């Protein structure tokens, strides 16, 4: 009798132990997946930030000269999701027209809570080796905002007043963990003084 009780007790304890182990396993798997998502999202937001930084640092730059101040260097004032500006990106003494804009909703699977969009970068250059076609990237961008400011921090509504551009990005992982719709999220925001090459 005591042997049977021992076996029943051991089975119950063993099952409880296995149940805990499975539960632990499940939590660990979810956590591991989420950590992996975080890693991917961090990597994506860094990649996007570096592209923006590379281009925005050159706003208004022209090798060996100065862009004509009569020409508006920023071409899309007050448009919060479309930025076009002039810059000599490849340092060859010719002016390139650089644009950033979002593709339409629906290009990639989305939900109202997670409106993923493709970010397009277009460089119209005199350099024949540069493509003028927009190049899209789907890195989980769900929010993009360009802000335009005067030197004193007030919002600039007129083209000539723009001295600072603010870029805000939100990147999410397109693949949620199934059980919780939990997604890794990363933000990046930078205010960039564009006056170095714009000052008259």
């Amino acid at each position, binding site marked *: 009798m005591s042997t049977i009780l021992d076996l029943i007790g051991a089975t119950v304890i063993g099952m409880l132990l296995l149940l805990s*182990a499975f539960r632990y*396993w499940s939590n*660990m798997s979810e*956590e*591991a997946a989420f*950590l*992996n998502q*975080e*890693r991917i999202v*961090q*990597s994506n937001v*860094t990649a996007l*930030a*570096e592209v923006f*930084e590379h281009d925005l*640092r*050159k706003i208004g*730059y*022209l*090798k*060996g*000269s*100065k862009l*004509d*101040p*009569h*020409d508006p260097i920023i071409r899309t004032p007050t448009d919060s999701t479309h930025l076009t500006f002039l810059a000599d990106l490849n*340092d060859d003494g010719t002016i390139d027209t650089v644009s950033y804009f979002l593709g339409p909703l629906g290009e990639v699977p989305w939900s109202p809570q997670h409106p993923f969009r493709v970010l397009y970068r277009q460089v119209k250059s005199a350099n024949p080796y540069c493509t003028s076609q927009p190049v899209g990237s789907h890195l989980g961008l769900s929010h993009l905002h360009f802000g335009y400011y*005067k*030197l004193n921090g007030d919002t600039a509504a007129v083209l*000539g*007043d723009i*001295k600072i551009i603010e870029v805000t990005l939100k990147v999410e992982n397109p693949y949620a963990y199934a059980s919780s719709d939990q997604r890794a999220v990363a933000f990046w925001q930078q205010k960039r003084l564009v*006056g*170095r*090459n714009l*000052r*008259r």
Partner: protein
Amino acid sequence: MGKASLIMIIGFSVIFGLFRMNFSRDVYDASKNFTRYFNRTAVHHIAISGAEIALGKLAETNGSFNGTTVPTMHGAADITVTDYTAGEKAYKKIVSIASYSGESDTVTVLLWRQPFSRFASFLEGLTAYYIYPDTIDGPLYWHNGQLRTRGHVVFSAYVSLSEPPLIQQGDPGGNSVAEFQDGWTVDEDIPIPATNYLAVAANSGYKVTNADLYLKFLPDTTVQYKVGNGSWQTERVTTLAPNGVFAALNGHDVHVSGTAVSHVTIFAQKQGSSGGRIWIDDDLLVGPPDARASDVKNRPGMIGLVADRDVIVSKNPANNNDCIIHAGIFAASGTFYAEDYDRRGLSGTLHVIGSIVHEGYTGAFGNNGQLVSGFHELLEWDKRFGYDMPPFYPNTDRLGIISWRE
């Protein structure tokens, strides 16, 4: 039972160990990604710091700084400054190469010795008001006197002052104040340089030394010219003055008008109290008479008027009903003014697209504030002067940034 427990413990340990490894890898990769971004940002800021340090050193040493290596922010910026010239323009190039934690970045800054045409208006010794709705659409230099504003006066470009401005409230609304869109700074005076070098430059241009010089530029690339009471002759501008400098030396004046389609500078040298004046006898243009500043941007012509004494809008029938001047005007020891401004009668509008050093009187006002003689004046800065200049136009002692590449 003991063996089973041991196997179970080892099994769990292996499984959890694998999980731990995955966790560690993800955490390591995430932090590595962040660290790499931080390093790149840091090295970029070090490169910018190097360029800023070089700019500061150039200002301290009046342009004689050649470069150095600066340890900063646990990295280093290797700074080099080189000089070169293109034509009569003098440039300095700063290259700041930064290194930090295995990353490197470069910032390149190109500077030039700024000409006086860099200022829309260069004023000395004046204390006066701008009032609403005045708009000053170009860099302004206002030294040895106080700039005063009342109401919403707009300064759309850089303002250099010798003392802080007096900013008073006014229209619209009674409590509006001036708006300095590119800021203002109190900085050192810029001395007016000697112009003798232009007499030397005129050796490769066209010069007269024994009489006044009369010039009328034509839009077909030629210039009609006359020396003293001689007869008019016509020649291509580039043939007569290959370097674009026309000069009346040894105390003579220049009379000028017409439409120029190349870069030219007209110079009048004084001798004692005689000569050194430039007379504008009729419209002096680089574009159509009805042009605004934005209309001359693609014009090939650019005119500089450099007088040891005054630049004068002549009192004559041609100037009695409007006068249009597209030029950088430099009146070294005198002013730019209208002849008999208070006795010539109403003369319309004096529209200057260019730059004025030492602006004087061009009109006289009655007690009611109405113009009673001379010109209404409209000054627009030719924005091309921000990166280009007439040949051998006088330079300031200031270096200015042409381009900044990060």
